[in-house]
């Protein structure tokens, strides 16, 4: 097949998958969140259960005027949402939905993931600075500090996985979780990493991921009761939609990363090799939705921390713990 055609096809499929996933996540957040708050949430849009609410919201945002503050740094202001969106979409390029269902088979998949996901910090900082708004500025700076601080425990948590799997390829990591650990009564048992020594790094990864996503309890960059909307304060219309979609795409993205690294990705116990490409996406989807639900659940239960508490948590707790975790796992890896 023509390489360009293949590329275009992959892009279109990926875009559709990612945007659908984000819209579904938005819908679940609207609906599940409402029920957690003793409301019913969207109800009339789309005829039943308000399923079309995210689409209706999107259509509304598209109609809005694309405003920029008079003193904004226009080119940067306009570019920022694209940077965030690109970072969000980039995550999905390397996440394997099945042994062959992957946008780009990279040997350094983990490396690419960490690089592309931290790219969004740049977009956020651009948005905060270029808006010419003091709230945006504070929000952008908070975001920058937060994203950089939580990049480190995130990477350290992933390093532990890489050490255990012995590869940086995401497919390799999934395969490592499929490998037979021991035989119990004639049945070959394979366990995901979360059950074989990666529990601590899984929690560190999730905490750091929520902080990277800047969602409650770590949503200080947008903290609507302090900074109105943080770096998003001045954005409207299509550009706000891009930030918004980007946020939810990243929620799905990070959940997919966590599912791949710790929960066995597209693999499941007793799944025959031949079925992996067919059932793989569904299995991954199941794991991702469980993680996404937990993230939404947390958002509707907890308040937010303070910026300095967040920093001290990263530097004083998460980083030392994950360093110790790496050491322990390395020792086990060498010993066994």
């Amino acid at each position, binding site marked *: 097949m023509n390489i360009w055609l293949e590329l275009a096809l992959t892009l279109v499929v990926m875009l559709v998958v990612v945007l659908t996933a984000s819209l579904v996540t938005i819908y679940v957040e609207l609906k599940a969140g409402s029920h*957690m*708050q*003793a*409301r019913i949430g969207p109800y009339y849009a789309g005829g039943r259960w308000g399923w079309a609410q995210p689409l209706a919201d999107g259509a509304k945002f598209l109609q809005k005027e694309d405003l920029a503050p008079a003193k904004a740094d226009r080119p940067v202001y306009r570019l920022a949402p694209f940077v965030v969106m690109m970072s969000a979409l980039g995550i999905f390029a390397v996440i394997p939905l099945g042994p062959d269902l992957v946008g780009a088979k990279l040997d350094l998949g983990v490396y690419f993931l960490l690089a592309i996901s931290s790219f969004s910090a740049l977009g956020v900082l651009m948005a905060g600075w270029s808006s010419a708004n*003091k*709230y945006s500025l*504070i929000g952008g700076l908070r975001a920058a500090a937060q994203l950089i601080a939580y990049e480190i425990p995130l990477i350290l948590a992933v390093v532990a996985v890489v050490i255990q799997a012995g590869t940086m390829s995401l497919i390799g990591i999934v395969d490592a979780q499929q490998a037979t650990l021991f035989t119990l009564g004639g049945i070959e048992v394979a366990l995901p990493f979360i059950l074989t020594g990666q529990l601590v790094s899984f929690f560190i990864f999730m905490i750091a991921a929520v902080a990277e996503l800047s969602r*409650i*309890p770590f*949503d*200080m960059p947008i*903290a*609507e*009761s*302090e*900074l*109105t909307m943080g770096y998003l304060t001045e954005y409207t219309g299509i550009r706000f939609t891009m930030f918004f979609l980007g946020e939810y795409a990243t929620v799905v993205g990070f959940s997919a990363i966590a599912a791949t690294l710790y929960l066995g990705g597209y693999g499941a116990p007793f799944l025959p090799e031949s079925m992996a490409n067919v059932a793989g996406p569904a299995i991954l989807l199941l794991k991702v939705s469980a993680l996404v639900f937990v993230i939404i659940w947390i958002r*509707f*239960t*907890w*308040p*937010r*921390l*303070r*910026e*300095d*508490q967040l920093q001290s948590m990263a530097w004083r707790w998460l980083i030392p713990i994950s360093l110790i975790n790496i050491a322990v796992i390395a020792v086990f890896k060498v010993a066994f």
Partner: protein
Amino acid sequence: MTSRQLMHRSEVAVSVELETPGMTLNIGPQHPSTHGVLRLVAKISGERIHEIEPVIGYMHRGYEKLSEVRTYAQITALVNRIDWVAGFANEVPFILGVEKLVGVEAPERAQWIRLILTELARISSHLVFMCSFPLELGASTPLMHMLRDREHILELIEDVTGGRFHPNFNRVGGVKPAYGGGSKTKKQSMDLPAGFFKRTLKAMDLMDQTCEDIDTLVTGNELVRARTIGIGVIPAEKAIEYGMSGPNLRASGVAYDLRKVDNYLPYDQIDFDVVTRTGGDSFDRYLVRVGEIRESVKIIRQAVDIIPAGPLQAKVPRVLKVPEGQVYSRAENPKGEFGYYIVSEGGKMPYRLKIRSTSFSNLSILPWILVGQLIPDLVAIMGSLDFVLGDVDR
């Protein structure tokens, strides 16, 4: 300009060191955490506040002036709009003051109805606090849960008075006896509707459950504790200096409650405690209010048992002329001491009405308490002070 001054100036200009000037952050009047239209002009460097100046008056509705051209009955309808989350509680001190001037006393049943409704208003006001305070900290779920439970209280108030927020139920010499003044027919007595006591007791049981929910969602939450314990500590003497009252004062360890001090409604026949805490920080101010909901539930349970039968209003002339004189009348509102200074020169309208509104006095501590705090603590402290802008600006 003299040469001396000029010289002085040039010296200053030379000796100025390079430093980053602070940023002026204008918080409000339209801002999510200012409960309306409070404006705070903050000089900050980083997120640390160096200087803060509250600007009020964006919601000034001129109640004191309006009252000078309205009859006492009309003012009763106005005053419950001052602190709108506890409408009934605002009427009580005003009507008590007018009663003192006229020299009538409300019959006992009316007094007890006032007491029950005041306590219901207190619960509903504190429940609104339970909504807004976690919301400032970023938790949106307590808001919905508390609003859901407050509905039971508002239904009770509406059941008796016909209004959820603005009861306008007090009359000089008692409570509203009936709708319409017609002597012929259809006189609708405004006594408590049938089943009110049963519904009240049921709602009080629900409030117990609500208090438990608050404890689960907010009190026990480690993040809330991390955000509020030790934040915005107001020592007792500072609180007194700035004229704070109510739960904000009691959180600093001063057991001053007008319900115990003044004996204005039959509170002396009821067994209840004044909730105090000693820390004086945001978390203590929150805990005092949770405790007060529990105490109010206790008060209402007792009051429902005690309330006697009888008339609703003492005999007062149809066209009320208040004799010359002046009076200061105060009551313990959900937010603290709420007072009216009424000056009458005889006639149907007061000559002057000074409103000592609670939130205004409680807010006056802001420039002192907020200096040196971080912006995230600013919202935590302001949330814990529990003010209503209508009450500040009047």
